[in-house]
Each structure stands twice: as C-alpha cells, then as structure tokens.
C-alpha cells in the first residue's frame, strides 16, 4: 500500500489524530476494498483523469479530474479517519459560480446522514470511494445544466 499512496501532505501540517492509515481496520478497508476499486477505475483511463492517492495528515486524499461535458474540473475527495462510517468529503478545486448544493470551500453537498430517505444517506456497508467520485460526476453534470439554465435538473431529496 505504501507504494500506492504518495508520501506527501497537502498542507505540510502534522496531526496527532488517529488516521485511517493508523488503524488495522482502516488499513484493511483500504487494502481490501478501496485500493482495488481505484485501480479498476484507473485501468484504461487517460493519465490526467486517473485518481491519485495521497496521505494528508490523518486522512487519505484522492485527487482526480472529471469532465462530464466540455469543461474539466479538478477535485479532491478526503477519506477521514472515521471513514467509511462517516462519508467522504468532496470538494471542487476548480473555481465554480455559487450555486445550489455547494457548501463552504466548494465542498459538494452529497449526503445527508440524518435524512429519512435511504437515497440521501451514505451506506458504509455498500459504497466505496468510487461512489463518491460518481456522485461528484453527477453533481458536476447538474452544475453544467444549472450554469446554462439557472435550474437544477433533478429534484432535491428531502
């Protein structure tokens, strides 16, 4: 796994928090589930659109690009120490116009764990980090429509 995860930090800060890579369960999850699906995702993908895996303090950071239509976006998905119980956090690095479902720091509003609808909740037993990438793709596709029309194309979940 150390060969797959770049030994870099994104901000140079040190942390004393237990990270995903500091627990046996976290390492198992990465080795058995997350890294294989990332490798599968990267297979046949142009280099600039592959997912890069980085260590960032106590988190694992995925850096990648998505291009749902004509525009190309840089993104980061962070797997926190409490992942997969807590859903991954995804932010768009490329500048966006302020729009619906966009939180501070250009973090995407993807999951709502308190929702009564299963479709709004992250399920750690069923989903991998690739689901977060796919959810971000769909969000960006909605953004492209909203940018043109002013309307978010799919109804908001409750």
């Amino acid at each position, binding site marked *: 796994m150390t060969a797959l995860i770049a030994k870099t930090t994104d901000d140079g800060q040190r942390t004393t928090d237990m990270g995903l890579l500091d627990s046996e369960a976290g390492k198992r999850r990465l080795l058995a589930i997350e890294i294989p*699906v990332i490798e*599968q*995702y990267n297979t*046949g*993908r*142009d280099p600039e*659109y592959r997912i890069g895996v980085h260590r960032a303090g106590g988190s694992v950071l995925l850096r990648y*690009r*998505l*291009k*749902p*239509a*004509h*525009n190309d976006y840089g993104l980061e998905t962070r797997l926190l120490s409490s992942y997969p119980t807590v859903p991954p956090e995804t932010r768009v690095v*490329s*500048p966006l116009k302020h729009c*619906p*479902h966009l939180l501070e720091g250009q973090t*995407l*509003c*993807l*999951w*709502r764990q308190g*929702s009564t609808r*299963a*479709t*709004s*909740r*992250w*399920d750690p037993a069923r*989903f991998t980090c*690739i*689901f977060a990438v*796919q*959810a971000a*793709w*769909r*969000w960006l*596709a*909605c953004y*492209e*429509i909203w*940018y*043109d*029309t002013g309307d*978010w*194309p*799919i*109804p*908001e*979940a409750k």
Partner: protein
Amino acid sequence: MDFRTLNDTERRQLVHALRGNADQGLAILMDRRNTSFVGYTDEAPDEEVINAIKSVPCHY
C-alpha cells in the same frame, strides 16, 4: 476557467439522462478514457459498472 456551454441537443440528452437516473434508475455512462458523458442505458454490463453511474445515493 473559460466555461464552454452545452448546445441544445447536448443539454437535452444530459438532462434526460440525469432525470432518468434519478427517477427510473437509468445508468449514465462515462467515457472510459476521459470521464465525459457518452450516453445512458437501462442495464450496464458488469465490465462497465465502474463507468456506469447507477443508483448513486445523493442528497441533492
């Protein structure tokens, strides 16, 4: 970033795919090489599941 907008046909197809994905479980297909939108389908083959956005849970 210079934003390049969709033309009418592209926008219609993408909206149809997004709504079909949300309402009827259509799978949206991503290009294997550069992740661009290539269409949608009722049933994605197993080997393409990594490039098929289907039943992705989302709050928005």
